């Protein structure tokens, strides 16, 4: 979210707080989130793509709701109203063209009326089909997960995104000579995928969530967390959504305000200032003095922290203004005494997600199917692959792969150190040395992480190696 978008969101919520709180809170958040997913989607050179991307998120969400969360497997009056609101959006955008508002970017991508009618009819048909049929939920779960993972892979791969751009350009009758991976920018899809996969896997064989369509969609596309998290769990979010609210001006409101101010300061002042001297390709090639190269690296380390942590503060703050307490995502990660604690304190909801839906099940699977494998190897394999997956989630590129391996290796070595070596070194147990050892540990962990950012920040391995050669 840009600063102007943040200010718009805060203004609307303040207005709502002053005049309507807490009545209609859930409806407001539902409508605001619907608007936000279209508003935040950047325009694309491919015709109507900026409309279809958010719309596809809504379609998949509606199907998921029908499969995993519908109450008593029938549409309530509220669900029908929610569905009408969702379907009305594209038509509303289209109608706005006639009153001269088509210049506003997020209205401009709406396709022609006929296509909208076809799309709406198709959506209603799908829902009608699901209503009559008893579907194989496991099969549909596999299909849905495969679908979102495949889309995620395409979005994270420059080459595949370009192929998709060519395909979509051909379909829309546009020139393919201008095709580019930049055409395919689907804002919020990663976090949408995480939330959806969480619901699908958690609901498998457990039963329905019994949520209204309105609240389900609000969870999936809740606007403060839509683009960059945090990734909440649906049960917790639903509790926040339907809790009893107090006064409009309460502690949450005050704390929300202070989190927003802190977040804006971190993101738009600290991070943006540090960005000027943060490690990048040009700086990597230009700087030829060791000390200044370390400065550029540390600037990057703090920049990425302030940027992301600042954004999370803003999201949590806006969430609080909206009456929703979102989970924390950062807990002083650079003061961690080891890399394991670091990864428990950095982008917490993402690492928890990977731990829950990849690391733990894979570890269990390997242990139960390969009893001869040593525990050390299993830890090595799962930690490396988990971190590589987190790396590749940022982009399917060698630099993110190596960054994942770097951190996976760090986690594995720390695991072995704390399990096997540390207990045998007597002076490390000396309580008098606790403070200096902790200080050294924090400095070491920070530097290990910072050096890892070298791989992360530069697009090629060659450039990263060049930076390492200048650092040491």
């Amino acid at each position, binding site marked *: 979210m840009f600063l102007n978008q943040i200010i718009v969101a805060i203004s609307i919520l303040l207005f709502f707080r002053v005049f309507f709180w807490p009545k209609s809170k859930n409806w407001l958040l539902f409508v605001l989130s619907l608007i936000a997913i279209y508003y935040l989607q950047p325009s694309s050179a491919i015709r109507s793509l900026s409309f279809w991307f958010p719309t596809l998120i809504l379609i998949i969400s509606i199907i998921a709701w029908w499969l995993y969360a519908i109450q008593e497997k029938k549409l309530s009056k509220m669900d029908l109203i929610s569905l009408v609101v969702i379907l009305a959006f594209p038509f509303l955008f289209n109608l706005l063209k006639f009153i001269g508002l088509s210049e506003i970017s997020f209205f401009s991508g709406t396709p022609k009326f006929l296509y909208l009618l076809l799309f709406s009819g198709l959506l209603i048909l799908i829902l009608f089909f699901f209503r009559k049929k008893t579907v194989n939920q496991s099969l549909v779960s596999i299909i849905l997960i495969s679908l979102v993972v495949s889309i995620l892979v395409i979005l994270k791969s420059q080459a595949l995104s370009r192929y998709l751009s060519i395909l979509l350009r051909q379909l829309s009758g546009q020139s393919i000579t201008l095709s580019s991976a930049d055409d395919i920018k689907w804002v919020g899809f990663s976090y949408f995928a995480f939330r959806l996969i969480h619901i699908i896997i958690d609901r498998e064989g457990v039963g329905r969530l019994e949520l209204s369509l309105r609240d389900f969609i609000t969870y999936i596309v809740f606007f403060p967390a839509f683009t960059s998290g945090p990734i909440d769990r649906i049960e917790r979010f639903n509790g926040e959504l339907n809790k009893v609210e107090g006064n409009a*001006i*309460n502690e949450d409101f005050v704390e929300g305000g202070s989190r927003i101010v802190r977040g804006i300061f971190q993101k738009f002042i600290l991070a943006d*200032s540090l960005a*000027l*001297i943060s490690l990048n390709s040009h*700086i990597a090639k*230009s*700087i030829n003095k060791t000390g200044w190269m370390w*400065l*550029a690296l540390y600037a990057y380390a703090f920049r990425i922290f302030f940027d992301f942590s600042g954004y999370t503060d803003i999201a949590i703050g806006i969430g609080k203004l909206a009456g929703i307490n979102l989970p924390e995502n950062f807990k002083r990660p650079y003061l961690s005494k080891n890399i394991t604690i670091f990864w428990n304190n950095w982008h917490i909801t993402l690492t928890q997600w990977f731990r829950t839906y990849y690391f733990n099940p894979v570890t269990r699977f390997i242990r139960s199917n390969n009893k001869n494998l040593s525990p050390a190897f299993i830890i090595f394999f799962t930690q490396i692959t988990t971190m590589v997956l987190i790396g590749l989630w940022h982009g399917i590129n060698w630099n993110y792969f190596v960054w994942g391996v770097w951190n996976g290796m760090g986690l594995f070595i720390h695991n072995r150190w704390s399990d096997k070596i540390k207990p045998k070194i007597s002076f490390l147990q000396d309580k008098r040395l606790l403070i200096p050892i902790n200080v050294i540990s924090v400095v070491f962990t920070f530097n290990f992480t910072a050096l890892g950012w070298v791989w992360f920040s530069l697009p090629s391995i060659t450039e990263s190696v060049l930076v390492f050669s200048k650092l040491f």
Partner: protein
Amino acid sequence: MKNNNKADISLKRVVIKSILLFILLNFLFIFLRDIPYGKISLYNIVIPGRDRLPFGETPLESFNLTMSNLDAMISSHKISADKKTEDDYRIIIIGDSSIWGFIQKPENTLTGLLEKKINFQCRGKNIEVFNLGYPSQSVLKDLLILNEIKPYTPNLVVWFITLESLISKEQLNIPLVKNNPLILNKVIHDYQLNYPPSTINLLDYTIIGQKRKLADVIRLQFYGALWAGSGIDQVYPENYTPAQRDFDLDYSYKNILVNQLQGNDLAIDVVQRTVSGFPNTEFMIINEPILISAGKNSDIRYNFYYPRWAYDGYRSIVKSVFERSKMNYFDFWNLVPESEFTNSAIHLTSLGEQILADKTETLIKNLCDTLE
């Protein structure tokens, strides 16, 4: 359990207090307008001072930026590093972008070459050379810079001028001049210049009015780290569009009638009053080299900037005025061959800089010998 009374804060009061505090802070800033916050600098303390004044249109690549806070600009320059000792003889080289050194690394500019070449002393003192050139053509702009570095007591100012930098009616339109009205008015007053004082809009000195300048001062500190680590303060393009050699049949120059250039069209008085304002400093005024084209219509125009009638007139007026007032004036207009200009009629190649440096060094040597 939450204390609802404590948390029950009036939104109205919070908003009103915030707005009042913001307005108050802004007006407080107006009263602090004379405080030279630009002098607070990491340069010459944490970061080495720059070899030339900050200027750059692509900051992320050049690690440099164009700004208008003169205090910050001077503070970032190595001239403000430390106090001059008794054994130092300070030479300031000042002028436009050709002196600043467009497309030249700091060590290949006129100043950089002089620093390397000069192996003699002046009055028994060690010579230090500083590049105070800045990319815009105005002698009033040069005066603003010279006035700022007055506390650093230069011994000799080598001032490169050209017709463009002397056009009287354009002196106040230069961004660096326009954006420093407080300093400009002081300079107009102190040097008794014949220009109207600039109007001061107090709202320009609120935090909101100054936000760009404040941000630039902070950014300059950040880019300093990259400049220190890389030595880069400019983008050095491998290819550039060469200066124009062929011209239209065009006699026009600044709406001045052909062959009617007069002394009062030129801001020679600014140069004279500057020299008077530095009684303890020697001055050497040099007409900088220009590209003399041999292309189409070169019988009418020397280059993109100058029709022959205007430039010839300028040379004649300046020579007579400076000779009359017994100033050290030298004319290098045709010193550099046409092939040694880069992307403009005043920017020099490395060889061009070398030719200019050789000649300037000789002049400085002669001056020093005379003084001895």
